[in-house]
């Protein structure tokens, strides 16, 4: 188990190295970073300062190492758009808003997706099952940005039930939360449904029924536990998507989180902020994957005990 955890950790680190190289080379290999990275109206004095700061007179390798060194200390340089703040402080300011939205998304994903999936499996073939599958199909096919705009149009403009955008009260989180969660709900619903259907066909579940246990008891007690392992590990990637893929939703609802920040920063060519966001997001993804890996390994004795999975 320890060896497995260590290997997972190592892989995660390698991933981060790869991302940092990608981000770094994008800033260096596309020409003189001073042209790309610096604001347009830059004085000669500032330019000299930037050259010294980024060590542009040194070799690429040295530049990369100092970039990583600084990044590890949370130093991505000052934000271009807000010169008195650093890139990291700009992000830190916005992060809680994204987490707030992400938590609502996660809660909806689990709280709605799983029960719907279980019910669909338990009543396979019923009208309810068909409706749930329709919802799942819709959630996987609808472009989020368009759904968001349409919801604003219907619920905020036409019906005037909810605020159009921004971060004002609890009502303002409803629409972005629902749009964000829709994909996760769809994924969880389908995963739980198919996984449960599979478990419901196994011998021990049939035996439980033969013993005279009620149908609902069998579904909830016997089938659910083993049937939930697979989908829940997939939840890792759903959660990552929720916490990081909020950009589009935040833009439409003018939600002041890091997704909107990334968009604004990219438009303002605030490169340090975009760079820092890209790296921090990959770090979050790597951590999430690591957590999923370890949970999975812990649940599966073959991995936990260091045996090779049976073929």
């Amino acid at each position, binding site marked *: 188990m320890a060896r497995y955890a260590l290997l997972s950790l190592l892989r995660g680190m390698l991933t981060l190295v790869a991302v940092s190289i990608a981000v770094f080379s*994008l800033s260096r290999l596309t020409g003189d970073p001073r042209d790309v990275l610096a604001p347009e109206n830059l004085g000669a004095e500032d330019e000299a300062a930037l050259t010294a700061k980024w060590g542009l007179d040194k070799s690429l390798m040295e530049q990369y190492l100092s970039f990583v060194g600084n990044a590890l200390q949370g130093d991505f340089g000052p934000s271009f758009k807000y010169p008195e703040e650093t890139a990291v402080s700009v992000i830190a300011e916005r992060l809680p808003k994204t987490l707030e939205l992400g938590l609502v998304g996660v809660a909806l994903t689990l709280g709605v997706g799983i029960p719907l999936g279980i019910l669909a499996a338990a009543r396979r073939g019923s009208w309810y099952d068909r409706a749930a599958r329709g919802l799942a199909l819709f959630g996987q096919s609808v*472009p989020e940005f*368009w759904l968001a*705009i349409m919801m604003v149009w219907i619920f905020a403009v036409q019906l005037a039930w909810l605020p159009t955008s921004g971060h004002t009260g609890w009502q303002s989180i409803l629409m972005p939360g629902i749009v964000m969660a829709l994909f996760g709900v769809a*994924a969880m619903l389908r995963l739980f449904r198919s996984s449960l259907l599979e478990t419901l066909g196994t011998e021990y579940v049939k035996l439980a029924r033969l013993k005279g246990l009620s149908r609902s008891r069998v579904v909830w007690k016997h089938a659910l536990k083993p049937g939930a392992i697979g989908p829940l590990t997939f939840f890792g990637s759903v959660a990552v998507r929720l916490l990081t893929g909020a*950009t589009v939703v935040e833009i439409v609802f003018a939600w002041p989180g890091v997704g909107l920040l990334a968009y604004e920063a*990219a438009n303002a060519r605030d490169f340090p902020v975009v760079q820092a966001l890209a790296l921090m997001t990959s770090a979050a993804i790597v951590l999430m994957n690591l957590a999923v890996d370890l949970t*999975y390994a812990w649940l599966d004795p073959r991995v936990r005990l260091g045996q090779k999975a049976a073929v």
Partner: protein
Amino acid sequence: MSFRRSTPRLLTARETPSLSGGSEVDALSDAPRSDDPDRPRRKWSRRRRGSRLPWVPLFIIVFVLILPAILAPWLTPHDPLRGELGDRLIPPVWMSGGDSEFLLGTDKQGRDVLTRILYGARISLIVSAVAIVIGTVVGSTLGLLAGFYGGIIDRVVSWLVDTFLSLPVVLLALVIVSAIGPSFITIISIISVTIWAVFARQIRGETLSVRESDYVARARVAGASDLRIIVRHVLPNVANTLVVLATLQVGVVILEESSLSFIGAGIPRPQPSWGVMVADGRELILSAWWLTLFPGLAILLVVLSLNLVGDWLRDFMDPQTRQGR
């Protein structure tokens, strides 16, 4: 042969826990792998056994995506990029003030919305076709090699897959765009870079189980070379998965392209990408809702249809569900 259907799932889920369990096709799958013959499911099984062609989705794919992409210039008299300012913001034909020359209305610059949607299909189709071809070729080659040879090749490929699947695509796209600006090539590269990993992961899992099969062992005994075994024996047996996955991924790519275009990191203006059209319509949603509604509807219908056809293909190619067992 229940062997092929039942093992890959376990293998992809258990052998590669780092891939977050469950494979892409499984994640999207409705069909349970083991059917229980004892349970009464009248309607359901009848529907399955029929396994009719999904006519409506196929119809939508042909008439909203493929035909417009090929025939756009001949289907419409208007120019997708230039309009008459005198024709600005004309509503759809069935509304008061509509003009039968502009069936779905016009935008702020007097361009016909329907024309732009038709040309937009061309962009969606080109982007997804290129990305899927690259993804299929690169992904299945690496997946076959990793699954077949195992060992160090497998480790390297699996790590690459993990890495590329955990790239923050939207943010990297924004990084690239803030550095070098949006372009056709940029968006195709961004999407291709992520899409191959999905194929590699799936094909690797399937290859792992096919490798252990009797016919591969026999081919080996008969003296077939590795290349011959991979091409003649493994590839045909993972081809079904490849077709299903490719179909489903076309929808994913179209969604991805339109999202990136929407945030300004995809197809540059004034090209009529569906995502760009929705973005342009957004500020005018109060006065000119048709600018947003119709291109978004085009995306929704096409992706929905692709998903339905993909689901149908998977059921159709799976002998168990096809025979309605």
